[in-house]
């Protein structure tokens, strides 16, 4: 296993603002690595540090074993797909894609052929003569991808590449990106604020908040076993339970996360078997979502718990008493101290 990108206690401070603050990470060659977090969490700055647009104020960066500090973007074997695509408006699509080869001195014939192939790879064959202004958002996104990939980078950096697309197109591009990454075997580092995107595409996810990595792991780990309250809440809106409440359920007094879909709704009368825990409370809100509906229950001491119930089950009245139950192992105690 080769390490593609290594961050060793990397910081990037802008005056008093700690955009990136002591980040350690190692992206493995060939993996699809997602950096997930809200805006201002430092994920994009990390990507820019990898691309060379920013220099760290502390720590050490290596790209395939070579020190990256002080190496300008044009001498790094990484390429970026920009959030706004940044296609050159004065060049045709083919010239845009061939740009990287042109500045490296590849002959005209050869580079245009390579660009043509790259366009075919992103399913835009024959679009070469158009101008960026004549393409739709989704097409421009593909051109940006082809323009980066034609250089055969060892690492491809993607800065919220699907952010500007509509939902349908986004889902389609998620699958295509994933397929493309597997077939090319290139390391992808992907920045997103959309947890669904990160969970569905990435091999591993680094969850960022306030310039630090909150948790780094596989999508399943991050989703099922969040280590901090922030991760539990940000990745999939889990119920975060306070230590006192957790203790009342018979667990150690620590913060815990409980997935809404792990809870099932009873009427408060049925028996509960031994390995299931039970919470009673009053319904304060219900929400119709389609496939499953959300019921929010006030369970005493200000603890509100959201549960997802199947659409087949009738929604309880607001204000009625209900019992929620969950398998004891579904409650996940977090490392974060009370």
């Amino acid at each position, binding site marked *: 296993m080769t390490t593609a990108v290594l961050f060793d206690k990397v910081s990037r401070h802008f005056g008093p603002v700690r955009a990136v603050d002591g980040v350690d990470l190692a992206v493995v060659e060939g993996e699809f690595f997602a950096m997930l977090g809200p805006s201002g969490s430092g994920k994009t700055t990390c990507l820019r540090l990898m691309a060379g647009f920013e220099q760290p104020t502390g720590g050490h960066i290596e790209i395939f074993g070579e020190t990256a500090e002080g190496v300008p*973007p044009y001498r790094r074997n990484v390429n970026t797909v920009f959030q706004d695509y940044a296609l050159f408006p004065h060049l045709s699509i083919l010239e845009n894609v061939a740009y990287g080869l042109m500045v490296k001195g590849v002959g005209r014939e050869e580079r245009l052929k390579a660009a043509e192939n790259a366009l075919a790879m992103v399913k835009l064959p024959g679009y070469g003569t158009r101008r960026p202004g004549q393409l739709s958002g989704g097409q421009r996104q593909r051109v940006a991808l082809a323009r980066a990939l034609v*250089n055969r980078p060892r690492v491809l950096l993607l800065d919220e590449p699907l952010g500007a697309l509509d939902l349908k197109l986004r889902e389609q591009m998620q699958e295509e990106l994933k397929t493309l990454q597997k077939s090319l075997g290139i390391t992808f580092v992907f920045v997103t604020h959309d947890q669904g995107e990160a969970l569905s595409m990435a091999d591993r996810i680094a969850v960022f908040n306030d310039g630090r990595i909150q948790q780094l792991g596989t999508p399943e780990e991050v989703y099922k076993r969040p280590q901090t309250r922030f991760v539990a809440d940000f990745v999939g809106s889990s119920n975060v339970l306070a230590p006192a409440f957790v203790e009342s359920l018979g667990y150690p007094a620590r913060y815990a996360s409980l997935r809404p879909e792990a809870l099932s709704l009873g009427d408060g009368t049925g028996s509960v078997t031994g390995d299931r825990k039970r919470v009673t409370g009053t319904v304060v809100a219900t929400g119709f979502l389609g496939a499953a509906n959300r019921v929010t229950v006030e369970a005493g001491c200000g603890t509100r718990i959201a549960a997802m119930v199947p659409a087949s089950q009738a929604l309880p009245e607001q204000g009625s008493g209900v019992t929620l139950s969950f398998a004891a192992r579904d409650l996940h105690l977090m490392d974060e101290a009370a």
Partner: protein
Amino acid sequence: MRSDRSAAAPLGLKIAAAAGLLFLHVPILLIFLYAFTTEEKSYQFPPPGYTLQWLAVAWNRPDVWQALGLSVRVASIATAVALVLGTLCAAAVSQTKFFGRETISLLVILPIALPGIITGIALRSAFSFAEIPFSFWTIVLGHATFCVVVVYNNAVARFRRVSGSLIEASMDLGADGFQTFRYVILPNIGTALLAGGMLAFALSFDEVIVTTFTAGQQQTLPIWMLEELVRPRQRPVTNVVAMLVVLVTLLPILAAYYLTRDGDQVAGAGK
């Protein structure tokens, strides 16, 4: 963008507009008219007769050619200097953030806001303080002060519309600073520079005030014309030259107008 209201303007407005236009342009037409008069001592209306002889006379006067040559050389060099300095300055102000950026932006524009006479006096005293003799180069320096502003203004407006990520994209794809300038920045700001350069050339070509303060014995074309009007000798020659100046300055300004007019779409903002 044109208004699609089809209602005709009221008559009063039409008359006022016509009067305004006449007020602006009749004097210029009179210059053209007197270039062809047979009366050489004074401007009488209507001219007693018409002739083309003054074109030939002007053609054969060496002092006209000398003044024209000097003006063209001064304008060309001042414009070239302005293109380099103005572009660099615009790039710095629009692409980077640094302490005092707004102040520098204001200071660059200031020379054109100041009356020319202030610039003239300031330069003249600076030259004599530094014991620089008046020459061709002092005129060029004087003209460059306002030419830089014109180029800067044009370039900075265009630079702001070239999104910063284009430059980053170019670097990311392996282009160094020079290649990025050559292949990405220049094609995107080219027309703005051309327009700025033409305006600068036109401004320099008919500059009088700063030139009077920074020129020694040499005469640029406008200065020559001023002198010529004082001496009542072959007056229509001045008009012939004035016609030439109108053409030489008007054409670049028109071209600049057309070049920048269509540049409304923001380079790199097409998402």
